[in-house]
């Protein structure tokens, strides 16, 4: 006979879990008591949102399922943003939450929340365990659901009495869930149709998304693109799926995509989305998206087909299997005219910034991160301008080396996700690039990096602004900088700061780093950047590098919201 708590720990062990992130509380004390004797590492976070993002970063960096464990009520609600982030980007997580005892559910008990109700819309599936006999099966099902199909977060809510109850139930093998049968194999006829379309196309283009990385299909994609001579553009989450140093790489598309990539979409005659779901930040105005192209879409999720862009050749299946099948049918075709055209566009409009600037620019810092890391780091971004610059000024050549909250756009993701990534990939250097706004949202987790002696480089590009908000206000809201300025200068009258001295900035990130037990460095000039980064990249523990950068730098190119991909603003001048 095992307790429910023991069933959970055994279920995690059976799923091959080696690291669990979490924070205890009253309703999970039984689970944590058993956990203290578990054969895997536990990482105590400082806020449950951090646990969810760490599990997420761990999963994105390793391809394994991230696990977090928190208490009922506020513990569970604090994970909601992290679960939603993972849900949007298709990241496998199993989140175990404690719940008040069964007989108290619905009575407004202490630390009670309707966790399955609250998380229904931000998980792939969730369970409220009412009978301990079900628990071994539910553990196995949760991991299966999280990992297969389009991956996603699964939550298991376990009342305290169920954790304590005893059961003889065991579960082994692959759970058969009659209502859950993800389509793993693409239809052979559709694959042949797609192969023929690729062979026939004069101006084909692959649009590669996060599905290629989640499906471990980067090698197949690269081989296919090279064999068929098809250029490759990627979405934000597709960065790293195809080497950006390859001559066929057009790099990122979309609102802040490269000019050549966006023009390629508008000019191609066949667009093959490979695990990309046509997010609105990718397509711009739908009616003018890829106007000359036949649209093909390979996706494991049938609901992604024709969701926003009408698809002519859908292939539902596991991307790896579909690409392997395509490889047998595509021919090498000479498309030198198309590729020459794309090369010209690439040369005309590379990622650029003012290299003669006397002021430290954020783009310069990211270029130096690329140089110092030799392009071998795992880059974890937060959300905002620096996220886009990280896509522009660093070249990704390996899958799972660019981690970012793409769908939900969660500020505060960067630092905890970087910690999770570093724990999962001790063989790699992890650097998180953050803005001064987002880093403050989960700064407390730096303690975890210190405690575990994780050599995460935390680069803060401090422009004293909520930079992307400020950019939109400059471009589309007549420069009314409402609530986007973190220094005293230039704030609207109703946001006045007491004791305002020009340039005053709070908090002091170097002192913050030191207060958390990490090394903090502040960089204000270009010539200091490399030295600080080298120090961070050779340290044995976390180093915070705060770079004071130009306050009003904008991300270009930019497709204004609702505009077509051909309408790129390339500068304000």
């Amino acid at each position, binding site marked *: 006979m095992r307790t429910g708590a023991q069933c959970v720990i055994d279920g995690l062990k059976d799923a091959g879990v080696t690291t669990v992130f979490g924070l205890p509380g009253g309703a999970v004390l039984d689970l944590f008591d058993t956990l203290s004797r578990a054969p895997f590492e536990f990482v105590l976070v400082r806020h449950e949102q951090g646990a969810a993002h760490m599990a997420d970063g761990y999963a994105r960096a390793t391809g394994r399922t991230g696990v977090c464990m928190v208490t009922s009520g506020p513990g569970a609600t604090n994970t909601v943003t992290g679960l939603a982030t993972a849900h949007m980007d298709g990241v496998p997580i199993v989140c175990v939450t404690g719940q008040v005892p069964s007989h108290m559910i619905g009575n407004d008990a202490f630390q009670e929340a309707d966790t399955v109700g609250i998380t*229904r819309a931000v998980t792939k599936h969730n369970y409220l365990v009412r009978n301990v006999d079900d628990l071994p099966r539910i553990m196995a099902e949760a991991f299966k659901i999280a990992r297969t199909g389009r991956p996603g977060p699964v939550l298991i809510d376990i009342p305290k009495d169920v954790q304590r109850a005893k059961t003889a139930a065991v579960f082994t093998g692959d759970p058969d869930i009659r*209502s859950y049968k993800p389509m793993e194999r693409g239809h052979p006829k559709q694959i042949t149709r797609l192969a023929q379309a690729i062979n026939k196309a004069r101006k084909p283009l692959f649009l590669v998304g996060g599905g290629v990385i989640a499906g471990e299909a980067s090698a197949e994609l690269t081989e296919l693109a090279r064999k068929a001579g098809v250029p490759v553009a990627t979405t934000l989450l597709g960065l790293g799926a195809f080497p950006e140093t390859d001559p066929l790489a057009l790099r990122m598309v979309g609102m802040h995509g490269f000019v050549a990539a966006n023009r390629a979409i508008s000019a191609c005659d066949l667009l093959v989305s490979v695990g990309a779901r046509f997010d609105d930040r990718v397509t711009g105005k739908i009616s003018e998206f890829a106007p000359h192209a036949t649209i093909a879409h390979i996706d494991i999720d049938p609901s992604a087909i024709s969701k926003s862009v009408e698809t002519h050749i859908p292939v539902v299946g596991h991307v790896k299997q579909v690409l392997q099948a395509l490889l047998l049918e595509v021919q090498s075709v000479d498309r030198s005219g198309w590729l020459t055209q794309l090369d010209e566009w690439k040369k005309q409009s590379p990622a650029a910034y003012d290299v003669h600037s006397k002021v430290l620019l954020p783009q310069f810092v990211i270029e130096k991160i690329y140089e110092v890391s030799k392009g071998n780091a795992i880059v974890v971004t937060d959300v905002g301008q620096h996220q886009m610059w990280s896509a522009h000024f660093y070249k990704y050549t390996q899958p799972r080396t660019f981690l970012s909250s793409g769908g939900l756009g969660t500020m505060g993701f960067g630092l905890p996700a970087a910690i999770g990534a570093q724990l999962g990939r001790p063989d790699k250097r992890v650097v998180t690039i953050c803005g001064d706004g987002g880093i403050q949202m989960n700064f407390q987790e730096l303690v975890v990096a210190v405690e575990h002696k994780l050599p995460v480089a935390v680069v803060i590009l401090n422009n004293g602004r909520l930079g992307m908000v400020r950019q939109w206000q400059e471009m589309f809201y007549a420069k009314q900088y409402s609530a986007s300025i973190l220094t005293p200068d230039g704030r609207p009258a109703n946001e006045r700061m007491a004791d305002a001295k020009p340039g005053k900035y709070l908090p002091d990130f170097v002192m913050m780093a030191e207060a958390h037990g990490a090394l903090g460095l502040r960089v204000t000039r270009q010539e200091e950047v490399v030295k600080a980064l080298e120090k961070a990249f050779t340290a044995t523990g976390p180093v915070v590098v705060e770079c004071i950068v130009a306050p009003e730098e904008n991300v270009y190119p930019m497709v204004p919201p609702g505009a077509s991909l051909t309408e790129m603003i390339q500068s304000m001048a």
Partner: protein
Amino acid sequence: MKHIVTLLVENKPGVLARIVGLISGRGYNIEGLTVASTLDPEVSRMTIEVPGDDRVIEQVTKQLNKLVDVIKVADLTAQRYIGQELVFLKVAVGEEQRGAVMDLVGVFGAKVILVQPNSLVIRLVDEQQKIADFLDVMKPYRVQEINRSGLIAMAAD
């Protein structure tokens, strides 16, 4: 246009909430909903009436299919199907109107299922158009209350 979506789902707590949440979360109103178990007591059949354009409903059915507890989804609107609904009407009738009302009950193949001194409860099971017609002709009488079951439907083939 109104769509008739029928689902086979696991008969478990929370399943209805998932389905309703998915539809209402997109701002669509459910006009009718019936749920009951099937020959397999672990499986329930749902019939949902939801207005929306074809593209949106196609998306909704795909998303419903994605829910782990949903076994099968079909939009019956595009195929041949039979669909009927049950309605109760409580009508206040005095002696002088009773005959006329009973005539209409007969014409529509309805049935009086409760007779009280000053009122009748009438039951009609039929297609929704017939029910609408019946409610129409009953308008001159004092209908105090109605209760409709919502449609249950089945594909013809």
